[in-house]
């Protein structure tokens, strides 16, 4: 059997989990809100961010340097 194209892994996993649901939604999105939430999370995760503790550390370093230079 020859295959014209390769199957996306995420879609095959979706089909394997629930073929009926896959057919019902024609291989498309089941919950648009969940997809939007997931995409947002993907974009946010693994980004360079300092966070509150990082800002605190920078403030402490800044104050320490200021005290030393005074």
């Amino acid at each position, binding site marked *: 059997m020859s*295959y014209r194209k*390769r*199957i996306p892994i995420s879609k*095959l*996993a979706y089909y394997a989990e629930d073929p009926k649901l896959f057919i019902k939604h024609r291989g498309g999105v089941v919950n648009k809100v969940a997809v939007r939430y997931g995409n947002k999370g*993907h974009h946010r995760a*693994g980004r360079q961010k*300092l966070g509150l*503790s990082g800002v605190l550390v920078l403030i402490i370093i800044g104050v320490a340097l200021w005290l030393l230079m005074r």
Partner: protein
Amino acid sequence: MAVNALILGISIFALFFIYAMVKKVRAWRYPVHNLFGVNIKRYQLIGSDVGGSTNQVTLRNKLVIGSPDALFKCKSAKKYIIGEFKSRRYRNHVKKRERYQVILYTGVAREQYRTNDIEGVIRYKDRTVSVPFCEDTYRWLLGLVPEYIRVESSFK
């Protein structure tokens, strides 16, 4: 005596502070390592799809294709870690679809990189879970490809 104790206390605090700072800077410099809890010294990030990265790695064999969210390679051995990120909380279960996805990535990576030393992990919002590879499940999933093609072509 009191002055000595004060100096000792300040020194200990300074050491902890420096240690916390080094950890923080490392986590900031290597956000994807930090996300998946992968050792920065031992593993090198080959490709990633999270945080707006554009250097994603594509895994493929004759039947399937896909890009995991992160792929790490051990610097000293032929060992890899595949990371998949999910925005939801773990809630004490890995969904079937998530497990199948990671097994497929791991299986294809095993073929592509010619090593069995590949670990698949899923990073949820609240924890990281390792997904053990299952050869039987991988073969079963690949066996579904002809059926999938038939179903998908019926949509057109």
